[in-house]
């Protein structure tokens, strides 16, 4: 529910500060540049303040901020006309005939650099959900609440992100 008059009851400066760490991770995952992400966070803050209608329900704040954050990342790519990190590689089908299994990639991930490289080459949405999961330690429910997605969607996105990561690690193996 959006209500301009009642929106004043939420302290948006506090909200921005409280949500800042995960918003920064979302931006970092999507733009692939720490400094650009930091700058974009400023733009998100501005965008929040410019919005004529903001959510009044505290439970809606996080998904609303998530949408604004993602929109800023998309705008950034439009402005810079830059492609995200090697998406063509990330979108490739695995070279192997069969799907990479967890065991395959566990064996392959002995080389830590391979996993790090694979994380860097993942599609931004996949990298985003894995980083939020492991660095914020969020449950599915918390991930869903922050991103505005359903729990089922979160589960599926995590599964797919892990599968794609396995493939990328296996490509280097």
């Amino acid at each position, binding site marked *: 529910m959006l209500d301009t008059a009642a929106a004043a009851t939420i302290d948006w400066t506090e909200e921005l500060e409280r949500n*800042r760490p995960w918003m920064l991770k979302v931006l970092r995952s999507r733009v692939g540049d*720490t400094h650009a992400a930091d*700058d974009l966070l400023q733009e998100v803050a501005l965008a929040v303040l410019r919005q004529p209608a903001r959510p009044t329900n505290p439970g809606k704040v996080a998904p609303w901020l998530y949408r604004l954050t993602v929109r800023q990342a998309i705008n950034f790519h439009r402005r810079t006309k830059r492609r995200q990190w090697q998406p063509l590689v990330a979108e490739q089908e695995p070279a192997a005939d069969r799907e990479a299994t967890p065991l395959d990639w566990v064996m392959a991930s002995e080389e830590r650099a391979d996993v790090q490289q694979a994380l860097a080459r993942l599609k931004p949405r996949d990298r985003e959900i894995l980083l939020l999961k492991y660095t914020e330690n969020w449950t599915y429910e918390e991930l869903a609440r922050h991103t505005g997605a359903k729990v089922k969607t979160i*589960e599926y996105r995590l599964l797919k992100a892990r599968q794609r990561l396995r493939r990328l690690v296996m490509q280097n193996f």
Partner: protein
Amino acid sequence: MSKHTEQELQIQRLVDGELTRPQIQQLLRAAEAEPALWRELAVAFVEDRILANEARQYARDEAVLPAGASGHSRYDHMNPTAEQHGSPSAWRSAGLWLAAAAMLLCAAGLGFLAGQGGKPQSPGELMAGSASSGRERRSDQNGPYTFQLVDNQGQPIPNAVLPLLTEEAAAQLGYDPSRATIPAALQSEFRRAGYELQPEIKFIEARMNDGRRLSLPYSDLKIRSYGQ
């Protein structure tokens, strides 16, 4: 959804701590009947451990900043004020002063931020050459409200209590919102000297004397050499 995918999801839920006790028992009973499932469960836990470590390391390596730790730009090392004072926060504070000056007092340039000396043709010297401070023009005006500028950690910036002026009052002080903070001629000089100017809007917070907070957009200008 295929049976295989559903099983993968169940294993993922187990590893992620998302299953209830009865669901865990059910999965373990299924593993008893299907030994290959035990192996998958074990590998999934190892995979999760590796991924957790690497994801956290990745976030650290890529310097995802903690709350309130922002503000260091890759351009800081090219910033004359940061160089001369040896502290990025000096530039940040100066930037806030700049913002206030630009918005309220229309300081004609950035000269008061730039110290003496520096390398020839550095951004600082270029700015210093066009210095024209407006700071002294603010103290004789008191609006009904004042506000305190704060830094990115929310700490008040010393002596940064400024009056909140109406547009008319600001105009009497010479504030012209259409006027560029850095004159076009100086910008041209920067470009000729090999610097790229990257203007952008940023945002600062100010606290008014009645407790309310203002969110103030201000123009920021990043300066970098073409080679970087």
